[in-house]
């Protein structure tokens, strides 16, 4: 079976910095993959290359067996890739419900969007805040709202860049359950995360990035007990 997402020899240089150095990442349909690695390992850069925020220096991005390396970002989104940014990217000045509707109206009629809006608000626990300005939400709620906008597109591949940053342990746990549920419903999810408790909660397979390369990849237990991973994370020599 062709993987839903495949990068082939992906390279990205920013001047002298080799941010991405020949990454071959394969994600199978239905997977829930975690992407970890120390700061500056190239995790967010990898997401941006997958979405086409900037072009790779060399290498290719394949989605559903199609080479999308040259497609504009919005075309990739239309193909079924959706992202939650690292810094919450919401429409601050607009009400919560309108934030979600703007995402929903892209694929649904007015009536269908309204029904779907209610489902999403319930799923994200945002019903009481529906008329509130998105900029007034708590940090955790903003993260949820953006996850909601990302999944409103009903993507086949969801990219989450540090979805639990700044959340309380309770909120983090809830987010983990939400991600697992989306995955069980058939969505392929790739998550960048620092919080190892969260990674343990959701992931079965983990990819470790280090200096723009795939350092090691495998089942969660193996990665956790891998001494090299501990070394690059904790700086042990």
């Amino acid at each position, binding site marked *: 079976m062709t993987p839903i997402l495949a990068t082939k020899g992906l390279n990205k240089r920013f001047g002298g910095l080799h941010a991405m150095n020949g990454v071959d990442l394969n994600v199978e349909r239905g997977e829930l993959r975690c992407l970890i690695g120390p700061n500056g390992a190239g995790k967010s850069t990898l997401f941006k290359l997958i*979405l086409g925020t900037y072009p790779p220096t060399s290498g290719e991005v394949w989605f559903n067996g199609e080479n999308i390396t040259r497609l*504009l*970002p*919005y075309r990739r*989104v*239309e193909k079924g890739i*959706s*992202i939650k*940014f690292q810094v919450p*990217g*919401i*429409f*601050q*000045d*607009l*009400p919560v419900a*309108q934030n979600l*509707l*703007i*995402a929903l*109206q*892209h694929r649904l009629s007015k009536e269908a969007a309204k029904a779907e809006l209610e489902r999403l608000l319930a799923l994200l626990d945002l019903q009481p805040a529906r008329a509130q300005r998105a900029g007034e939400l708590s940090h955790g709620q903003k993260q949820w709202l*953006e996850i909601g*906008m*990302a999944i409103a*597109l009903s993507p086949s591949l969801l990219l989450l860049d540090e979805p639990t940053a700044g959340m309380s342990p309770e909120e983090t746990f809830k987010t983990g359950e939400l991600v697992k549920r989306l995955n069980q419903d058939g969505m392929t999810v790739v998550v960048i995360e620092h919080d190892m408790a969260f990674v343990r909660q959701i992931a079965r397979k983990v990819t470790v990035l280090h200096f723009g390369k795939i350092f090691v990849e495998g089942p969660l237990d193996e990665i956790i007990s891998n001494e090299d991973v501990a070394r690059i994370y904790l700086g042990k020599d």
Partner: protein
Amino acid sequence: MGNWFSLLNGPQTMGNGRGFWVSFCAVILILVALPLFADSYLINNIGFFFVWVFMSMGLSLLWGYTGILSFGQTAFFGVAGYAYGVITLNFGSSYGLTFAALLVAVALAALVALIIGYFMFYGGIRDVFVGIVTLSITLVFETFMAQTAGPEWAIGSARLNGFNGMSGMPPLTIPWPGQEDIALEGQYLFWFLVALVVCVYLGLRILVNSRFGNVMVAIRENPNRAEMLGYDVRRYQLIVFVIAGALAGLSGVLYTTWGTYITPSTMGLTAAALPIVWTAAGGRKDLTATLVATIFLVWLSQILAVKGSQYALILMGFILLVAVMLAPEGFVVTLVKKIGLLARRSAPKATSVSERKLADSSSSS
């Protein structure tokens, strides 16, 4: 009918309630009846205020709703104004040709906006640089037109006349079978302007409250997020830029027919800054606020100018500063929100009183 009406109202406009629409209709009725009572000086004057609102509503659309600050809407104003002059001076005004000239002039302004906008938005120019590019363009147009004084600068029989500008264009005329053409002057021009303001205003309300309008405000709030929801941001920006350019062009044509002249200074720095003051002072994120503020501020500058004061422009600058510091959302918007807040604050009190009464009556019985 009800369905059509609901298109006018939505999250992107203030004044969605019954009270607003009742007063809206009342204002229109007063305006329509006004020429029957008022003298022609007043009618002409109010007509002059209406001339400008198309440009500022276009800027509201562009800047307030879509987040693109153009400093050069006057470029399109001037292009259309001059185009109307050139066409009508060459082809005359019979057979309703003036309306064809109006349409061609506005289309030309839209075309210029399309070309400039294409290179800007598809070339990745963003934020403040759009303002710099558009300002440069309007100043280039002004400088160019100002040096067309010589007789070699003529298009057909229309002399461009350099800094003195073109004059003597015919007013808009409606051909009437069996009779002389009706010239849209005085009260007729006034009624025409009122009708045009109402149509454009309602049309823009429908636009901003539609799906398209949702995407416009999404782009204003966060263009990256809008793109990551699958919207081609550049295309939306270009479309809005063209609409705003056409509206500025419409103002330009109406200005030309109103005063039967146009000069290069209508594209100069001062002229370019004024729409920004009008739009910002009232509340750029709302069409109605922009409309009201534009009429008020054009009236105010005129009063000051008529009194021989040189301070009209300084006052406009001062108003912009005060608006930015005290009411960054605009005076009209801030005022409406304050009133709304007061009304809401008193409303719960009223219910609590009635609830208490209810409780009292139930306990006493």
